[in-house]
């Protein structure tokens, strides 16, 4: 919670340093009489001391007023909220898929350590992890939307589409496929690596030998004793990642013109639309803080060793 306060302070002062003249920027390039500008300045409280301005800022923020976007002249809050569902859908699907697939791959790699399965999984995931995620997106786009036009080139539905209901949903699925594939491939390496590491640590523990000594099958030992213990750090990672992946999709959304928070950020950079960037930054930080908190709670719930 304290962290969020820091974020607010940081956000405010950082932008104030740059925005020497917020009102002027708002009306850039337009002929507005000086008097109007002065009035607005007073209305916005910009002639008041900095600390007072900060209090206004905090109050406004909690009331959902994040300012006006330079580029669209719409309230930042509205713009952001519009982008949330798209990003949550894309990032949510990718995060879940990459966590599931990555974890399974990590288990295989650790259990069959040093075999070709392990090496191919480790190398493969390292390969995907080493490339810029948006570049992977570009490759997939060219391969499956341009060269072999299997998928659309961008957007969330076909342009000008009037479809509703199931048709619309299918169209959306069609559009989400490539960007989701890109993000999933890009992120599953981390899960695979962590799970493998964690499972290897667990595999050195005595209670696995005990489990075998009891006459249990290899499969059972793995599923009931090894994996549950190895899963704990992975669960924490997953929860934390949900917070971070929200902002990690910025470049990929740009590549696929996916109208979410990421694309909004990319567009805001080109302005630079500072109120938008400020608002987005606040949201991204909040997301991470919330998910970190959830991760702690979840871990405490899952690991019996953590005292309430």
């Amino acid at each position: 919670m304290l962290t969020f306060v820091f974020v607010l302070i940081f956000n405010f002062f950082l932008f104030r340093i740059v925005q020497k003249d917020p009102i002027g920027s708002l009306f850039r390039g337009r002929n507005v009489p000086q008097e109007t500008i002065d009035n607005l300045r007073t209305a916005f409280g910009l002639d008041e001391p900095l600390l007072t301005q900060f209090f206004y800022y905090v109050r406004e923020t909690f009331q959902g007023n994040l300012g006006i976007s330079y580029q669209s002249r719409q309230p930042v809050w509205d713009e952001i909220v519009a982008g949330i569902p798209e990003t949550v859908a894309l990032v949510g699907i990718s995060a879940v898929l990459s966590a599931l697939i990555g974890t399974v791959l990590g288990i295989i790699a650790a259990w069959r350590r040093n075999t070709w399965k392990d090496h191919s999984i480790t190398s493969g995931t390292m390969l995907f992890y080493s490339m810029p995620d948006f570049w992977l997106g570009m490759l997939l786009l060219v391969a499956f939307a341009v060269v072999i036009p299997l998928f659309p080139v961008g957007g969330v539905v076909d342009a000008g589409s009037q479809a509703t209901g199931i048709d619309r949903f299918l169209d959306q699925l069609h559009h989400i496929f490539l960007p989701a594939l890109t993000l999933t491939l890009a992120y599953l390496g981390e899960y695979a690596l962590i799970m493998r590491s964690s499972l290897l640590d667990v595999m050195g523990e005595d209670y696995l030998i005990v489990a075998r000594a009891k006459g249990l099958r290899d499969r059972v030992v793995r599923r009931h004793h090894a994996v549950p213990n190895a899963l704990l750090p992975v669960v924490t990672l997953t929860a934390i990642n949900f917070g971070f992946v929200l902002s990690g999709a910025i470049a990929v959304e740009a590549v696929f013109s996916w109208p979410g928070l990421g694309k909004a950020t990319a567009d805001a950079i080109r302005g630079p639309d500072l109120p938008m960037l400020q608002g987005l930054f606040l949201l991204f930080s909040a997301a991470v803080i919330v998910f970190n908190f959830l991760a702690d709670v979840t871990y405490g719930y899952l690991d019996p060793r953590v005292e309430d």
Partner: protein
Amino acid sequence: MTTRLAMQRRRATTVRVWNQFRSSRQGMVGLAVLAVFVLLALTAPLLADVRELNPVFARSQGNPQWAPPSEFGPLGTDYIRRSVWAQFVWGSRVSLFVGLAATVLTIFIGSVVGIISGFVGGRLDAALMRLTEWFLVIPFLPLAIVLASILGRSVWNIIFVIGVTSWPSTARLVRAQVLTVKQRLFVDRARSLGAKGPHIVARHILPNVSGLILANATLAVPISILTETTLSFLGLGDPSSASWGKTLEEAFVNGAMIRNAWWYFLPAGLGILIVVLAFTLIGRTLEEIANPRLSSER
């Protein structure tokens, strides 16, 4: 411990580490690949004319637009007639330079904070750790974007931004190691012999921490390079320099994908991929040397 003995020890350790490194296939492959790219970057003037990066010059040469490698070698041209090969070769300089410089900054800040925090302890440690935690919670890319947007688009700003946003994880690692070293008896013994703080840091703590710092640095370079690439792709790069990230940005913005101008966006991305892989391999090898994993013995 006399200085000469310490130096002999250090030399012996370096030799030992090098021998272990040499026997690792992944390490040597990484090193070889990296060497190739460093050579590429250094010999850029010999490999491609820097004037080819200038669109006015390119036009004056009568270069075709969007020419594939079959028409204009070795890597074709882009939307304003510039040689892609020249961009690749000269871009390697910027990408490598920014990656390394940013990492140096990251490691420097991280190590200093980590060492001070771990060594001094107490309130200062608590305060620095709070700061570190805070930085770790803030999503990395948005923070970099915000800073870059505010500071403006130049190579040095990018280096600064990456350094300032990446130091926390190094700081945490270094601090943990410093705490471990501090617990060992000989630091207490040195203290009881009357050694002062800075002396202890230099003589005892630094040598034991430097291995970890090196391994961490090697693994931090990929992050720096990828971050620079992403920032450039989003338009925050230095407009006057031609990093690989910038090449990708221009390719994207000017429709290279729709045209399937693979020669334009493939090489830069591949370059990043290979260099990052090389550093990762080297880093993992160093990590394994510093920290032999017991589980692989079982």
